[in-house]
Structure formats: structure tokens, C-alpha cells
């Protein structure tokens, strides 16, 4: 008996510890800050300005590994964009511009790429960039990248050869998106093995310190090859509850907070300027296509008809945001298909009719699981649940912690529906569409369609750009026809920026570029 109580007690103690270490820490901290008087906060902001440093708020901690080829979440990629660089780098316009390479040539058959490296580029650990580093990076990335699309594209590279100051890559088949993939292979020093915890790149900021579940510090890289960042030190602090976030903004604790909702920026003090861009992600009610009743296409179509996206946008964002219709957002001008946006106009009667056909004349109960740290997704889910009532569907919104969402839903695929946004890791259609290929490890929604698989396989294997575009567009149409998910919007991205700061740039990718910021 005594032993049993001993075990029970230790279990409880461990749970207590875990509970204590969980997300709640931040909220207590933030509420502590509320008591800080306004005056103190002002001097805090003023002191930061004098020291040329800023505090950036983020909604979640980074992934455990910061290795450039293991960046699994959008929130991590977004920040590490400032630390790592590739031969070519995406610009705010969406074009790829020379970075660690100064120029490249491509042979007439599209198979051989020759990159000329920039001279005198230094890594954060003072090593000088050589062609050998580039070869090492490409080989490592091909071997272990968690980005399946990048990995697949690199499988087509037969050889990467270093030759003094140039790197030659030979492809087995031409790939018109090759430069985009080159742009996502971050260059790291040869044989440096601590990338996961002490990342070293060539970017404008040096990764300096990380306190798990608390903060991350970047400092300016003084030996940067290009125009140096203006800000000396950037501290990222995690605010994973809305209360913590709002308190941080109201108490002037942060200088920059991106990805806010219109409600959060409404009534912000004059100390902040609010910028509006788009998030560059596909927010949807993602549906587990493999579980009942969602394995029936009519049920999924009914959900699409039952939901009124315009009204949802009005409710959650005062009408800001761009409707999508499929798994692609408008920054991809070539692939975005406007005709799909209104494929399922709001029609509750039609939704009911489809449900009746599917054998649910009285609707059913369902659960929408949302990560609690993303207020915009939670708000969206609450509004959707209310809209679904009209079609007789009784939806319960369940909040989970971000870590639980990643393990149970994204990896475990143990869910009915969820509201999140998926970003594009590279500026290719693959990045947004490949996750729906039947056997993809990212196919969280368990979407199965052989026709879709065939289109994606064809698009990946041919070089005729017109035909490729056709394939991708057809694939998007299939996602819409099959009502794989309820595609909602590319959310309006509100950024609160201290009014004394300027130089913030929006990108067509989910990145947070800090190098242009200046007081």
C-alpha cells in the first residue's frame, strides 16, 4: 500500500512539474508585467531604442532542432530566414536574387547549372565560405531534409562539383523550378555538427542564445557580406496565450509583433503603427478524410456549403483576408485559380440536402480541434461552429496546446477537423499541393485520389512549363471538387510595429525579415 502511494505521489509530482513548465509560465510572467507602470514601460522602450535593440513577440517556441534541414514548423522557418542563406535568396517581390552566389549560367539543355560564388563571405563562426561548403550543404540537404519537396527535387541532382570558385550541378532531368529549390538549400560550414542547437549560417543575424519556452536572441552579424542589419540585437519572446500577447502589446513590452488579428490591433496605443500584408498561408478547416462521416464526399461538400467564408471574414477580421477555394494562395499568380474561390457558395439548404443524401438528415456531432496559441484560428473555429449549426451540424471547438497539436494531429492524424494555416516552404506549387499526395508523410488529411497523385507525378517529371501549370491547376481543381477541406482564406497579416521603427518588408513567403528594420 505504502509503495502504491509512493508511486501515485511521484506521478502527481511529475505532473505538477510538467504543468508548471507548460504554457502557463508565460501568462504569469505577462500578468506580472501589467503591474509595471506605464512610465517604466516607456523607459524600457526608450532604453531599447538607445541600445539599438528590439523585442519581437512570437506565438510559439521554435522546433527543438534549428538545423537548417530540420526546420519543421513555419514559425521556426520564419525566424531562421535571418540566420541562414542560400546561393540565391527570395526578395520581397518574389524574385530570386543573388546571395552567396553572384551569378549562374545554365546549359541549353537545362541540365547543367554553374554558380559563381561570392568572394569573401564569412560564416558566423568566422570560417570563410568555400565551394566545398556548398557541396557539403547540398549533399547533406539531399540526405536529410525534412522538406519532402526539396528532398525530391535534389534527388534529381546527379552531381554537385566544386571547382575553385564555382559550383557545377548536373541534373538528371531539367527542372524549371530548380532555382527556387537552390534558394531553399541553406549553406552551412562543412562538417559543423552543432547546427541543431548552435546554428551557424551566413545571414545578417547571428543566433546567440535560446531559453526554451522563453526567449531567443539574435545579434547583428558584423562581418555580413552585404548591407549589414541596422538593429544590434533582437530578442524574440514567446507569448502563447492571447492574454499574454495583448498584455505585452498594451504594456509596450514588444516592438514588433506579426501575425495579429484585426481585433488584436484594434485599439492599439499610438506607440504602434499597424501594417497590413497577407500571411501567405492557406487557412482551412482541415478535415480527416479517412474518418466517418467525413469519408463521404457529400458530407465534406455539405460542410463547404454550410460555411459562409465572407461572413466569417467579416466577423473575425472586419472583412480583411483573401478567399481561396483551394490549396493555393494568390501570391502564386501562375497557379492561383480564381474560379475556385466561389465553387461552394454559402447555401445551407443545399448542405442539408447533401447531408440527407449521405444519410445524416439530422446532422451529426463533430469536433474542431484548434491550437490554443493561435487566436485567429480559435476565433475562426468558433465562428465556423456557429455557422454549421444552420445545417444541423453540432460542432464543439476544442483547444489544445501547440505541442499536442503537432504530435496528436499533425503527426498522429488523430482528429476529425482542425483549423490551421499551412504555409509554402518554397515558392513552388509543390510546397502547397504535394502534401495531398496519397502516400505523402505530410498528408495529415488522409486525402486519397489516384488522379491527383498522377497529376502531381506528371508535374514533377516534366519540364514543359505550360503543361506543368496545367497539371497543378487541375490538381487544385480536384481538391476543390472532392471538397478535401474547407479552404477558407489567406489571412490578413497585421503587424504591430513600434512607430519609431521603420523598414519592415512583407514577402510572398512566410518569413520575418528583420534586416531592414531601423530606428
Amino acid at each position, binding site marked *: 500500500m505504502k509503495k502504491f*502511494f509512493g508511486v501515485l505521489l511521484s506521478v*502527481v509530482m511529475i*505532473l*505538477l512539474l510538467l504543468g508548471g513548465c507548460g504554457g502557463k509560465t508565460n501568462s504569469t510572467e505577462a500578468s506580472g508585467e501589467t503591474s509595471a507602470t506605464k512610465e517604466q514601460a516607456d523607459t524600457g522602450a526608450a532604453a531599447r531604442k538607445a541600445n539599438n535593440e528590439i523585442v519581437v513577440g512570437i506565438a510559439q517556441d521554435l522546433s527543438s532542432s534549428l538545423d537548417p534541414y530540420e526546420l519543421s514548423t513555419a514559425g521556426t522557418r520564419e525566424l531562421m530566414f535571418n540566420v541562414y542563406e542560400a546561393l540565391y535568396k527570395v526578395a520581397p517581390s518574389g524574385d530570386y536574387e543573388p546571395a552567396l552566389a553572384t551569378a549562374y549560367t545554365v546549359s541549353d539543355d537545362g541540365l547543367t547549372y554553374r554558380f559563381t560564388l561570392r568572394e569573401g563571405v564569412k560564416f558566423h563562426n568566422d570560417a570563410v565560405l568555400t565551394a566545398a561548403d556548398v557541396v557539403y550543404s547540398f549533399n547533406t540537404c539531399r540526405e536529410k531534409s525534412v522538406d519532402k519537396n526539396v528532398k525530391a527535387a535534389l534527388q534529381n541532382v546527379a552531381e554537385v562539383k566544386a571547382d575553385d570558385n564555382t559550383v557545377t550541378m548536373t541534373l538528371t532531368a531539367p527542372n524549371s523550378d530548380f532555382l527556387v529549390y537552390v534558394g531553399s538549400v541553406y549553406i552551412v560550414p562543412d562538417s559543423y555538427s552543432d547546427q541543431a542547437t548552435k546554428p551557424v549560417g551566413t545571414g545578417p543575424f547571428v543566433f546567440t542564445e535560446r531559453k526554451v519556452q522563453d526567449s531567443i536572441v539574435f545579434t547583428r552579424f558584423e562581418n555580413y557580406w552585404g548591407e549589414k542589419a541596422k538593429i544590434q540585437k533582437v530578442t524574440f519572446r514567446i507569448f502563447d496565450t*492571447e492574454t499574454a500577447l495583448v498584455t505585452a502589446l498594451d504594456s509596450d513590452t514588444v516592438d514588433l509583433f506579426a501575425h495579429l488579428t484585426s481585433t488584436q490591433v484594434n485599439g492599439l496605443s499610438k506607440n504602434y503603427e499597424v501594417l497590413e500584408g497577407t500571411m501567405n498561408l492557406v487557412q482551412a478547416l482541415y478535415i480527416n478524410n479517412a474518418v466517418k462521416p467525413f469519408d463521404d464526399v457529400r458530407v465534406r461538400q455539405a460542410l463547404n456549403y454550410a460555411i459562409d467564408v465572407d461572413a466569417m471574414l467579416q466577423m473575425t477580421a472586419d472583412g480583411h483576408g483573401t478567399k481561396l477555394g483551394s490549396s493555393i494562395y494568390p501570391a502564386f499568380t501562375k497557379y492561383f485559380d480564381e474560379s475556385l474561390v466561389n465553387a461552394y457558395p454559402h447555401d445551407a439548404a443545399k448542405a442539408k440536402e447533401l447531408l440527407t443524401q449521405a444519410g445524416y438528415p439530422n446532422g451529426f456531432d463533430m469536433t474542431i480541434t*484548434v491550437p490554443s496559441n493561435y487566436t485567429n484560428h480559435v476565433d475562426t*473555429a468558433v465562428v465556423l461552429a*456557429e455557422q454549421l449549426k444552420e445545417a444541423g451540424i453540432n460542432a464543439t*471547438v476544442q*483547444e489544445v496546446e501547440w505541442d499536442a497539436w503537432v504530435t496528436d494531429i499533425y503527426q498522429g492524424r488523430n482528429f476529425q477537423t482542425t483549423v490551421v494555416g499551412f504555409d509554402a516552404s518554397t515558392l513552388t506549387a509543390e510546397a502547397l499541393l504535394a502534401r495531398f499526395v496519397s502516400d505523402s508523410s505530410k498528408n495529415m488529411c488522409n486525402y486519397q485520389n489516384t488522379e491527383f497523385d498522377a497529376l502531381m507525378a506528371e508535374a514533377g517529371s516534366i519540364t514543359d512549363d505550360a503543361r506543368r501549370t496545367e497539371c497543378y491547376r487541375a490538381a487544385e481543381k480536384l481538391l476543390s471538387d472532392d471538397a478535401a477541406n474547407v479552404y477558407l482564406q489567406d489571412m490578413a497579416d497585421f503587424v504591430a510595429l513600434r512607430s519609431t521603427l521603420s523598414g519592415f518588408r512583407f514577402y510572398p513567403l512566410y518569413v520575418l525579415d528583420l534586416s531592414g528594420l531601423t530606428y
Partner: protein
Amino acid sequence: MKKLFEKHNNWFFRAGFVITAFMLLMILIGQFWTPYEPSAMDASAKGLAPSLSHLFGTDKFGRDIFSRVMEGAGSTLLIAFFVVLIGASAGVLIGAVTGYCGGIVDEILMRICDGITAFPSVMLALIIIAVLGPGKWNVIWVLAILFIPSFARVVRTEFSRIKKQNYISLAKLQGVGPLRIIIRHMLPNAFPVLLPAISIGFNNAVLAEASMSFLGVGVSVNEVSLGRMLNDSQNYILRGLPWYALFVGLTIALLILGFSLLGEGLQKNNEG
């Protein structure tokens, strides 16, 4: 009932009765009729200040706060009701058995109760909910279990006192079975002590539900309860919606005040 009002000019009981009756009436009406559909959203009426058409104003989705308070207080009260019902039933059972039997059974059951009370109840509830997952019924079960010791203790003390009374010994001598002694002879006599305990238990249950929903582990986001509303409102206190938190907080305060006064009045009645 009449006696309670007249006896000793019991103001606690009177005030508690009036407040509780008023709150219960509002909640009861809320189950059948509210000025607006509590969950109905209206994009054109977001964050309105209190007015004649929206007595308590509206929230960030344009939902009428007054209607939501009426319904939310109902679900809070329902949770409290089940918590007290389950907790008190189990508590009375355990208290009766331990109080009547004494000995080793008493020792074991009461030490377990001590173990439960040793932890702050909301803290323990949070841990259990973290394992079980949130939801109305999970909250009810967890809180009910946590409330058992307080009832068990009260009943046990009373039972061990009554056990030594002559009429119980007489009944035993006459050969009355233990079950009949407990139910017919002892329980009715323990009732005056149990009543205030239930009233105060109710009070605590309302608060516990509110705290748990406030911390985001109670009812789900799209359900209504007072704690959940308080959680929603906290971000807007300084953002132009102060009345949201104010009215929800006031409702909780009134509800608690009513039960506390009732409990106090009942206790005074026993003493007098």
C-alpha cells in the same frame, strides 16, 4: 421554511434567499427565453457599449452579453448542481459508514480524504483535466470527487456524535439493523449540519467552475459559462470593452453572495 424567516430575525437567511431566488429566476427564464439567441453573432454589432437594446453590451463577435450571462450562469449552475449532488451523495455515504463503523474502515477512508484535501483543489483539478482532456462532464466528475471529503468530514463528525446518544444505543438493544439505524435514526438528525455544508459547497462549486473555465480547461470555447466569458473578457478590459468583465464578474459575485448568505443563515439557525 416559515420558521426560518421568523426565528431570531435571521437577516442572513432572508437576504440570501432574496438574492438566490432572484438569480435562480433569471437563470430559469434564461433557459426558455433570452432577449437574443446567446450564440448568435452579428458583425454589425461588435463590441457595443451597454444600451437599452443590449443591456450589458455585446462582445467581439456581436453576441448579446446579457443573453449570454443568462445562459452561461445556467450552465455554471448546472455544473455546480451536479458537482454538489455527486459530491454530497458520495460524501454522505462515506461519512455515514466511517462515522458509524469507526475502526480501520474509518482510518483508511478518512486518510484518503485527507490526501485529497492536502492539495489545493483547483490545482489538482487542473492536473486531472490535463490528463483527461477538457469538457463539461470531465469537469463535473473531477470537481465532484474533489468535493467528497468536505461532505464526508461533516457527516462523519455528526455521526460519531449521534452514535453515542442514548436513543441509538436503545435502538441497537432493540435489535434494529445498522442500515435502518443509519437511514432512519441518524441521517435525519445529521441533516441540519449537512444543509449549510451543501449551500457552501454550491458556492465553492460555482467558483471552481468559473476558475477552471477561466483558465481555459473548463467548458469548450464555443459553449457558454461564466468562467469562459470571464476568460474571453479579460483581454478587452483596457481595450474599450470594460463592461464585459464587469457584468460577468458581478453575476458571479451575486451568485456566490446569495449562497454564502443562505449557508450562513442556515448555520445561525442551527446554533440558535
